[in-house]
């Protein structure tokens, strides 16, 4: 008769054996693994630019987007990666005074540029008026899209001031005005999954000194 101890042993043996046989089926033996040619090291390049007023010099894999350089190498993680394909605006930063999607541009293409991220607009102790207004008007819920929204919003007011027309500008030959319709159209490149849109428009209108 089998003692309980013997039973335990054999059961364990069975389980181990079973697992081993399954492994043998699903994992090909090491010796049969296809041999891969050694990959050449990725190309790198040097780039120097200014981020939030500080000169930075980096050596990057040429494939590095400006977004990844900011987040992974300079540890400025305020700028967010949403889609990595220009579709959401979470990565919006201001380069030489213009808002762009940092995910769709290579870091090496920004030699000599002046880059401003959310960290450069203001700090928790000394907030930019747009950051302040987003807090006052509750212009976010989860906050993931917020740095992009704020960078975009700051640039939008400058664009209206500079007379840049939008899809909803009624008269191409007149100066565009700050209206809720203009702001909504101009902010359409910034998606908010939480749907904080109406409060975002309130915050921007407040900074511009108009009623939404």
């Amino acid at each position, binding site marked *: 008769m089998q003692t309980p101890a013997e039973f335990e042993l054999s059961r364990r043996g069975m389980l181990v054996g079973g697992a081993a046989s399954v492994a043998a089926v699903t994992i090909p033996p090491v010796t049969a693994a296809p041999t891969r040619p050694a990959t*050449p090291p*990725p*190309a790198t*390049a040097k780039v120097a630019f200014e981020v939030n007023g500080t000169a930075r010099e980096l050596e990057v*894999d*040429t*494939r590095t*987007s400006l977004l990844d350089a900011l987040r992974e190498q300079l540890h400025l993680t305020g700028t967010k990666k949403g889609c*990595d*394909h*220009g579709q959401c*605006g979470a990565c*919006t930063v201001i380069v030489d005074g*213009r*808002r*762009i*999607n940092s995910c*769709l*541009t*290579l870091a*090496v*293409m920004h*030699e000599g540029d002046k880059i401003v991220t959310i960290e450069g607009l203001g700090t928790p102790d000394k907030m930019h008026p747009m950051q302040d207004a987003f807090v006052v008007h509750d212009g976010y819920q989860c906050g993931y899209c917020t740095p992009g929204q704020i960078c*975009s919003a700051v*640039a*939008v007011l400058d*664009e209206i001031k*500079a*007379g*840049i*027309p*939008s*899809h909803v*500008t009624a008269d*191409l*030959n007149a100066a565009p005005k700050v209206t809720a319709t203009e702001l*909504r*159209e*101009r902010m*359409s*490149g*910034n998606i908010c999954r939480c749907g904080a849109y109406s409060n975002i428009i309130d915050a921007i209108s407040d900074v511009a000194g108009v009623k939404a």
Partner: protein
Amino acid sequence: MKSFTYERADTVAAATAAFARAKDARFIAGGTNLLDLMKLEIETPAHLIDVSRLALDRIDATPEGGLRIGAMVRNTDLASDTRVRRDYGLLSRALVAGASGQLRNKATTAGNLLQRTRCPYFYDTNQPCNKRKPGTGCAAIGGFHRLHAVIGASDACIATHPSDMAVAMRALDASVETVDAAGKARVIPIADFYRAPGTTPHLETVLAPGELITAVTLPKPVGGTHIYHKVRDRASYAFALISVGVVVQKDGTGRVALGGVGYKPWRVSAADAELPRGAKAVTAALLDGAKPGHENAYKLPLVERTLAGVLAQAKG
């Protein structure tokens, strides 16, 4: 993304020479289309030549009374130029109907013309696509084709050209100026710029490899009322299902070009001639020979109705 080497060109001659020297090179301007496609390994260049800093960022008056738009003029700057807003309103309107503020700040005149289709199967590397991988077939034919071409397509490809700007350029009779590696310049009317898909949908324009766009020129202003009407699935930041660009004169004559219906902005001189007779006659001439599928047949009545609205708006 595949690894690539990178260089920045300072002159047009240096850019074309670099292309001739390198293997599997690509020019990069705003990067908003090329980088997107490189991330998905739909484009896999071994070498990038950055042309974004070439001194091709000016808009100059031409002796003929038109404008010469440098290839690197950003979409935002082109849409905002006071001469463009006053004399070529259709172009401003088409530009600001496209993409987002962020993207227009980067996108260039040349890059916009050369942006590739938004056919979802072209983007999905698991699907057959003759444009992405010649000879593999076309997943859109018999598949999801609500967004696709209704005219000028072939058995190999039914993709549309996604550019809004190109529709305005076509209606305004723009020309594309280029220089090749040997330094030879040529001028290509926009009407002859895009190639029909035929059996080679991967060849999209008449440009030779390494031929660099230096400028796009506009003839002298034609006056009239300029309207660009884009119909899309959401009110902003979406590609066109169809779009209608018109210049209409006081006497009802004018010109009309369509976006979202074919492999290039669609304009037919016989259709221009029908403008005084109204939307039905114009659409019949414009889309004569159209072969829509069951999912995109809606584009035909949509063009006619959108055009009717636009012509009513032009009358004021």
